[in-house]
């Protein structure tokens, strides 16, 4: 799916020559802060064109063919405040549907359907800016799911949420029929996944069955935790 992807921003190589083929239903991507996870998510979703190489889903180039990309992949940003475009919950969810060509009425019907599927019919017309962080995250998830993409990319969806909120959101994500690529720095969040990819300084450090990759990742993280690499400045 990813062919020899490299990304250079300014004069930093954020991703170098990454090639991956993903077919699993649940893939985790782990790595430290700054390892390039968010950049990889944006590449997969086609929000950014790689400097070299390409990201394809079923043959379509995600950055070039935006029309196909809309049906192929949905992305949940790390910060829901960066994702919510509209003042009300309905408009936020209906927008994507209208982008897919639904007319206003059809979009309104689908919006009601997804709200009631999540037991959130009471959220009709609610103002998005007054929602809690977890509620915003859920609105974003509903807005993405409403478009029925085949793949959903989640960029650290649970950071900053309390434990009960996270558990509830996990339940919703577990029920998602589409394939999921979830990015996280916390190995516990992807423990039940089919495959885990460990990203380090813009390259794939390890890729394989969840248990093996997470064991190595945790060992390395603990070792680094005892060092002092906070003093190193990038660049």
């Amino acid at each position: 799916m990813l062919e020899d992807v490299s990304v250079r921003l300014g004069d930093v190589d954020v991703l170098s020559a990454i090639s991956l083929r993903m077919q699993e239903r649940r893939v985790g991507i782990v790595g430290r802060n700054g390892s390039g996870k968010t950049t990889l998510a944006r590449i997969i979703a086609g929000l950014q064109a790689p400097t070299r190489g390409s990201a394809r889903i079923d043959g379509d180039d995600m950055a070039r063919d935006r029309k196909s990309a809309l049906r192929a992949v949905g992305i949940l940003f790390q910060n829901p405040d960066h994702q919510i475009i509209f003042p009300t919950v309905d408009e936020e969810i209906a927008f994507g549907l209208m982008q897919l060509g639904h007319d206003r009425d059809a979009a309104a019907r689908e919006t009601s359907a997804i709200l009631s599927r999540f037991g959130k019919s009471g959220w009709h017309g609610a103002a998005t800016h007054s929602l809690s962080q977890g509620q915003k995250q859920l609105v974003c998830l509903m807005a993405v799911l409403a478009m029925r993409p085949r793949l959903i990319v989640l960029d650290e969806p649970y950071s900053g949420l309390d434990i009960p909120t996270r558990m509830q959101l996990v339940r919703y994500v577990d029920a998602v029929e589409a394939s999921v690529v979830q990015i996280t720095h916390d190995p516990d969040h992807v423990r039940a996944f089919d495959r885990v990819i460990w990203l380090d300084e813009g390259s794939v450090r390890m890729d394989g069955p969840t248990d093996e990759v997470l064991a190595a990742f945790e060992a390395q993280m603990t070792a680094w935790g005892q060092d002092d690499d906070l003093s190193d400045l990038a660049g």
Partner: protein
Amino acid sequence: MISLTSPVETWAHDVPAGVKLAALSAATVGLFALQNPIWLGVALVCAGAIVLSGGLRFARAAARSLRILIPFLALIAVWHGVTGQIEAGLVVALRLLTALTLANFVTMTTRLTDMVAVAAFLLSPLRRFGLSTRAFELSIALVVRFTPAIAQKGGLLAEAWRARAARRVGWQIVMPLAAIALDDADHVADALRARGGLDQTP
């Protein structure tokens, strides 16, 4: 006076936006035809009754968003008092208050999407000249969405300032606030792109 759509559901929420806006236009034209302060007073009472029909909680919210009119009304009263045209002053003040009470009622009971749909319909002749009304619709939504968000971020910056300074919040937070606004604009652009951008698949 952008009072957002009221979360309190009233009967008027179910009336189509086009009907409400047409009625509002007709009423406003009518108000300008009325010259008699007594009839304008009756009109104001009617407008008040319409707002009250939405319930007490709704009416209180409506009254709150009309409060910012008080200084204007006071100014009109003082001006006409000084120039001695009490009746003319009364006419202007009543007309203004009634028209805005009605306009506010329509804003509070109409979802933004519906309001924008009406505007887009009225602008649709422009489409024949190749102008996109969609950008216009989107920009209204963006203003409503981000005005409170940016105000809130300004508040947070001011708080961060006060947490570490005894002096009053200074102009220095203007630059970081502008930077935040630009950064936000970047994120919205991304969010739009993630869901297909401005062009709509027909």
